[in-house]
């Protein structure tokens, strides 16, 4: 049963870089779009709010898979320009998760107490300075837990890229299936474990950021129980789940 385990690892691991690229690229676009669209949702201008709202509702309210097919398959026919499938995938992941992230940023900005804004007004900061120097640094920490969720969802959505022939992990596993049909259990177990390991890495980084942000705001670090605390829970030498094959 496990005869081909080493081979499966080898094939699936070839897809890992693509999964990582798609995740990191998607996260980068997500962050940029979340901040822009999130602040636009709070704009004084109705037009700006309206445009941002259309973006958010449009990408949040339609299927990610269909969006992917649109950009990777339909758009080239319409405009005669073919994006590299990986780039098309990154773009869709970013556009889609940026729509969710916009609401995260909007909520975080609104969670900063009004008194902080008034303190900044009393010092005669311009509206832009209030946002950059006072509000955003305090809103940042509030975005981290929901962004952690969002980034993990984005990671898992990279599997969709298999459907436009990006050779990421899921696509690699799919390539094995017709040949090793009897061992699909093992093949899919390997990619499940790899997705989980990547999501643990995301959570670990986000928790580190959360601690650093809490320290900067003079708050005590958020206490986590040892089971979920990445610092206490991450074994140093690798584990059954996240360790080396």
């Amino acid at each position, binding site marked *: 049963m496990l005869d081909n385990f080493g081979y499966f690892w080898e094939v699936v691991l070839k897809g890992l870089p693509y999964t990582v690229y798609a995740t990191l690229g998607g996260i980068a676009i997500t962050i940029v779009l979340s901040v822009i669209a999130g602040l636009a949702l709070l704009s004084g201008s109705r037009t700006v709010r309206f445009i941002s709202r259309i973006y958010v509702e449009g990408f949040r309210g339609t299927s990610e898979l269909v969006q992917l097919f649109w950009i990777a398959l339909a758009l080239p026919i319409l405009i005669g320009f073919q994006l590299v499938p990986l780039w098309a995938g990154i773009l869709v992941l970013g556009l889609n998760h940026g729509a969710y992230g916009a609401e995260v940023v909007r909520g975080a900005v609104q969670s900063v107490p009004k*008194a*902080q804004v*008034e*303190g*900044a*007004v*009393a*010092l*005669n*900061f*311009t*509206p832009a*300075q209030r946002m950059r*120097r*006072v509000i955003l*640094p*305090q809103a940042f920490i509030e975005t981290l837990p929901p962004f952690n969720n969002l980034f993990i969802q984005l990671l898992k959505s990279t599997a969709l890229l298999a459907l436009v022939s990006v050779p990421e992990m899921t696509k690699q596993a799919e390539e094995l299936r017709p040949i090793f049909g009897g061992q699909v259990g093992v093949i899919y177990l390997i990619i499940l474990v790899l997705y989980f390991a990547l999501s643990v890495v995301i959570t670990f980084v986000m928790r580190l950021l959360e601690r650093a942000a809490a320290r*900067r*705001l*003079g*708050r005590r670090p958020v206490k986590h129980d040892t089971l979920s605390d990445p610092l206490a829970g991450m074994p140093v030498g690798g584990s059954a789940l996240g360790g080396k094959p």
Partner: protein
Amino acid sequence: MSSIDATEEPEVGAEATDDSANVMIQFDGVVKQFGDNVVLRELDFSVSPGEFVTLIGPSGSGKTTILRLLMTLEKVNGGTIQVDGEYLSHMYRGDKLVPADEKHLTKVRKRIGMVFQQFNLFPNMNVLQNITEAPIRVLGLPKSDAEERAKDLLDMVGLGEKVTAHPTQLSGGQQQRVAIARALAMRPDVLLLDEVTSALDPELVAGVLNVLKEIASTTDITFLCVTHEMGFAKDVSDRVLMFDQGQIIEDASPDKLFTEPEHERTREFLHAVIDRA
């Protein structure tokens, strides 16, 4: 000047009132309402440069609203406010007086500073940065100058050793003294004090009030102060205004107002406040 309705344009040409040289703050027929609740009804009063004026009165009488209007945290519904002869709530567009825009507000607001009940220090900055951020970003001071001045101010409020501390590491009284230093770092002509000791533990109140007394006696800043500390008000004020239901019902020197108030309402209020203390 006659009172002004919210829909009516204020009289043009009133920029230089006769005694503008001796008026730092001028309220003319100021109306402020929140929904149906009228907080200020056609309020007129003025404050001279360097004067220390304390506003007293029951809660909800509109005292804090006056400070918030001056700090441009609220907008008037009617009437005008001038600071040193310049409109705060309005501005000229051509020769028409219209509600002030953000640019105008930024220009006139720089003369005014405010200390808040809850301090409102920025938790994303340490003590020194709280004080230097606005002088550097808003006034354009070189960082070294701003820091030097901030340290002098911290010495003055007795917190010279807390330069690198974080606001959350300080007691309420210390935070409030940092907030006072922060407001002074902007070199305001007018300083608004909004119940600055109300959120403090009783043993920390004196330290803050002493700092304020010191500043009031050594600078020519104009003070407008809302407080329930009657002893402090009596000590430092040049004038005390008793408010009730959005109007001034008594305007007198502290000696007169605290010892022989004219109005029954003032007497009742002072009794209530002093009994509580």
